[in-house]
């Protein structure tokens, strides 16, 4: 594991471009990749794979249940299948197929669940997942990841292609900031402590890591020392890092683009209780609501999970304890 931070959030990359490019390079390297989609070939960023590499791609049509079971089963012939759809159609709709035909069968499957949570934007509740961590975390032996940036996203894809297993890779397709420098590598099951402090520790998942860094900057301006953990692995949880770090802080805040039920707040909260951690704990997440249409900023605000809300939560604690 060797990663380096960008140190600013100015350079960005489109995840869908990373998806297509990473798949293409792995195919060119001779890896036995099978890229699958369910009528969203033009959306995932893997469109060029379907045009150019017919032997390495298959469009299942709007048949996600069949896609999950069929794609996972293709791994019996040595393929490493990658499937994509918008997050609800590769989580809520197919939980049993993931459970039986992928997990229980010990087949290989990489699920790219795109536009999770508020990233569904104008598609509303039907296309919004605030429950997919809960669904996927509860299936035995499934790896659940929430990359914070293009570099972690690509690393997860390559890790799966090398090692197999069942991966639920939950990430937007959009242009998001690079948190890490190109070429950084990570370790399976390990979270990344990307900022060290002493007062408040923010543990964030996925694109919320960028919001956590913004919040940290603003809190620093107010004289508060902040640490940030990029969780990356939702399951398995990096208990070692969490146990080690939480002891150094007075307040721990978890932030997630997910329902508070079954999400990272619950997972971290349970860990803090098990370790008898001597710190305050706040969890920011969606409070049992369905999705709705809107811009990302509007939705973050409605669900009270923006950097603004992280700052507010930290300040409320500090003011109360001054």
């Amino acid at each position, binding site marked *: 594991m060797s990663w380096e931070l960008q140190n600013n959030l100015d350079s960005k990359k489109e995840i869908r471009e990373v998806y297509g490019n990473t798949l293409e390079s792995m195919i060119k390297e001779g890896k036995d990749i099978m890229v699958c989609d369910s009528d969203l070939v033009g959306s995932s960023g893997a469109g060029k794979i379907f045009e150019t590499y017919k032997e390495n791609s298959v469009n299942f049509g709007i048949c996600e249940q069949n896609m999950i079971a069929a794609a996972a089963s*293709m791994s*019996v012939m040595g*393929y490493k299948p990658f499937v994509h759809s918008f997050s609800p159609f590769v989580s809520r709709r197919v939980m049993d*197929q993931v459970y*039986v035909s992928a997990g229980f069968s010990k087949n290989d499957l990489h699920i790219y669940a795109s536009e999770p949570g508020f990233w569904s934007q104008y598609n509303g509740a039907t296309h919004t997942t605030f429950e997919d961590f809960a669904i996927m975390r509860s299936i035995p032996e499934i790896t659940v990841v929430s990359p914070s940036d293009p570099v972690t996203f690509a690393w997860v894809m390559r890790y799966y292609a090398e090692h197999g297993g069942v991966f639920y890779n939950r990430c937007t397709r959009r242009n998001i900031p690079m948190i890490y420098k190109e070429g950084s590598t990570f370790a399976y099951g390990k979270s990344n402590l990307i900022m060290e402090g002493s007062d408040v520790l923010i543990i964030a998942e996925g694109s919320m890591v960028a919001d956590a860094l913004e919040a940290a900057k603003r809190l620093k301006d107010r004289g508060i020392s902040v640490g940030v953990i990029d969780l990356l692995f939702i399951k398995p949880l990096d208990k070692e890092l969490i146990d080690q770090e939480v002891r150094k802080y007075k307040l721990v805040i978890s932030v997630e683009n997910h329902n508070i039920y079954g999400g990272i707040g619950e997972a971290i909260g349970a860990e803090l209780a098990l370790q008898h951690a001597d710190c305050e704990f706040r969890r920011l997440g969606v409070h049992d609501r369905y999705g709705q249409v809107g811009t990302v900023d509007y939705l973050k605000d409605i669900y009270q999970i923006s950097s603004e809300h992280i700052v507010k939560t930290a300040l409320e604690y500090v003011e109360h304890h001054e």
Partner: protein
Amino acid sequence: MMRQVDNREYATAIRAVISEMFVARGDGHIGGSFSIADVMAVLFNKYLREDPKDWFVLSKGHAGPAYYACLYLQKKISKKDITTLNANGTILPSHPDRNLTPGVQCSTGSLGQGISQAVGIAYANKLKKTGALVYCIVGDGELNEGETYEALEFASNKKLNNLIICIDSNKKQVDGLIKDVSCDYDYQKLFEGLDLTVHMILGNDVEEIDDTLSEILAADDGNCHVLVLNTIKGKGISYFEDAENCHHVTFNETELKELTKYRMENEGAVKHVLGITE
């Protein structure tokens, strides 16, 4: 694989082994296990090859005992396992588990998924040009599941000529007749409508099954073929054939006697198939 024994005798042996499992267990999915015994006999006796390794997918996973009977007759599982169906720590769970039972190739039992697994495996084999064939048995009740049509569309689109789908049309599901609980299917039109080649045949007639499979393989016409097997649920023991519902039965004394009688009367077939001479 060369034909080892008469298909009819193989089918009888399958039913006798299933009977032994059920007597030991006291309950089981007898209806659907017995209705497919004839097609299972033809496939395991004559068609499934080791090289190239053909695939068998029991999409209607609740008929697991019929699968286990074949694996026993092929000596992939042992005699002592036969009496452990669903017992604690068994390697014979009611629904097949590819990571638990020697010879089981796919984990099925969640209806609709086996046929999806079969189309995936068939497509992968086609791309890899292995020459292997995939045989998949789907229940007629299972066709209630929307996923089966997703899989059939895929089979049609990819012209999976290495996949043969057998529909066990025993006309009954848990809650009653298929036509009452679901609808009155016209399989010919339904599957032809999906651009698949359909064969409506007597599903408890080993000769008709054997002839149809031979014709399909000889023709090699580039299409995916569907055999609609007109079967009788519980076929083999008239007591169960006549029952209103024998999907899953907790056997009473009379029923246990029927099963024991069948097993005793047909022990010779089992031994013959196993190649044991008295």
